[in-house]
């Protein structure tokens, strides 16, 4: 009798340790899968960095795993033919001015819809929402023709000004304005004699700041990454933003792989830096707003 209970206790212990073993093996497998997937995500970038430091001969003939010493040679061949720093500078100008306009006017429009009622306001807001459903390419050729008629081709205006009418930003910020800006604050400011526009600048923008930051990151990334618009609108190579310059390296250096890798590297570094600093905020933004460009 005694030995029987002993036996079952032993059995139970082996089952339990078996279960624990099973669980640990299961977890180890999960970690291995996660790490392999993480490697797949990062390897292309690693290979790009490594390749950018080797001569064309080595890139063409060897599997390269460790950094070499040819980076500066590749770099100097690249900047000889493609004004990559000019492209970087162009990208910064277009992206910052475009994002600033988008943020300011999206907040302005959102505030107008959120806190005032006027004739046709529902209809107009429905028009904003309808634009969310319409893919951009349907307007692209008409847009190109119109910019030609305005004499705005080969300038930055067609890349920057349309940002004033950003349907997603208006929609996203209106949701936030409904929740974050209370009517009481606005009423008491009015009683103190504050003007309507001043109120927007002094009260509403600070209250919308967190939402503006979230949306701003995505507006910034979207503008930084845009390719089709600049490639259509701009003719002069030295006016092009970075992504178009990177695509140009493909045509100009069909066999100079080292220079192409350096070009790609230079265009990815700013994104890597931004992402390392803001990863948490960016990922929160994705799950909060389900933002997609």
């Amino acid at each position: 009798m005694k030995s029987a209970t002993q036996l079952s206790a032993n059995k139970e212990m082996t089952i339990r340790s078996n279960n624990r073993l099973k669980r640990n093996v299961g977890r180890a497998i999960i970690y291995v899968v996660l790490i392999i997937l993480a490697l797949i995500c990062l390897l292309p970038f690693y290979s790009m960095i490594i390749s950018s430091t080797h001569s064309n001969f080595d890139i063409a003939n060897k599997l390269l795993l460790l950094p070499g010493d040819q980076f500066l040679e590749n770099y100097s061949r690249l900047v000889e033919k493609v004004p990559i720093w000019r492209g970087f500078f162009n990208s910064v100008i277009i992206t910052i001015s475009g994002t600033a306009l988008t943020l300011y006017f999206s907040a302005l429009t959102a505030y107008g819809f959120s806190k005032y009622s006027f004739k046709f306001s529902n209809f107009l807001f429905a028009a904003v929402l309808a634009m969310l459903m319409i893919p951009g390419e349907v307007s692209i050729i008409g847009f190109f023709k119109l910019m030609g008629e305005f004499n705005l081709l080969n300038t930055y205006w067609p890349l920057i000004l349309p940002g004033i009418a950003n349907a997603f930003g208006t929609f996203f910020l209106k949701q936030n304005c409904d929740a974050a800006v209370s009517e009481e604050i606005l009423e008491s400011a009015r009683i103190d004699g504050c003007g309507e526009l001043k109120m927007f600048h002094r009260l509403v923008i600070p209250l919308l700041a967190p939402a503006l930051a979230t949306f701003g990151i995505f507006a910034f990334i979207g503008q930084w990454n845009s390719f089709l618009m600049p490639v259509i609108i701009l003719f002069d190579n030295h006016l092009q933003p970075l992504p178009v310059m990177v695509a140009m390296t493909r045509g100009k250096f069909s066999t100079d792989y080292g220079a192409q890798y350096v070009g790609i590297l230079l265009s990815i570094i700013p994104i890597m830096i931004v992402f390392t600093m803001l990863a948490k905020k960016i990922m929160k933004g994705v799950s909060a707003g389900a933002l997609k460009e």
Partner: protein
Amino acid sequence: MKKKSYYGYFFVAPYFIIFLIFSLYPILNSFVLSLSHWDGLGESVYVGFDNYARLLSNPYFYQSILNTFIIWIISIVPELIIALVLAMILNEKFIKGRHLFQAVFYFPNIVTPITIGVLASLLFDWQTGSVNKFLMGLGIIDDPVNWFAHPFIAQVIVATVMCWQWFGFNMLIYMAGLQSIPRTLYDAAEIDGANKFQVATKIVIPLLKPVVMFTVITSIIGGMQIFEVPLVTGTGSGDSTQTMMVYLYEAAFKRFQYGYASSVSYGIFIIILALSFISFKFSKKRQKAPTGL
């Protein structure tokens, strides 16, 4: 209460001025252009529905629709499955380094698409690319594979790149969806003796259905507009990676048939609209069915 005031008009006016000039007018202008011949230089000539007749009888257009669908299907199925499985794994309590994994999986999504296209075409280059070198190093293949020479393999590569670029985004969406499922539900299922697989298929997936539908709809809209990666990788494989957007781009900005290209843009627009409408209807119908909660 919202303030009844004409000030609202001032706040929303800039949006609608820009919207009318830079969005609505170009959309209508594109339609007018689609009824005419225009080579970008002279006046456009009205030709009625000639362009649409040509579009509907053009095998290249149908081929580009087919290519887009093939690439979309091959990328979306693994993309959403990987995203869902990863979201469920990373939602487990025992996982360490959750945020790091999330960040690594999501990172490819914010890198400039055209840069990814150039990088992919370099890595998959059959003579000099690291992919062939790596596979040969592992002994998986003996001779370098000329990836882009096979029409179907070229499509698979573009689809793989799309999958690689977007699974992290969808994973974040699913993780946000998982957060909204109460923990007590899992605990209750565990007490009832359900294993992980049963919890996943019987509880998690049914509850996530609306979120899954959301990712399917957004990926239809995004997938129909695949452009940058096939544009760069598309040479050498014949036309197998010529997607609808690449076809539109080449008709307009390489062959300068702006009128015909406008009819292409309306064709794409109608396809996207129809697909969104169908999936929207489908998801509504499915949501009416009981989901267990």
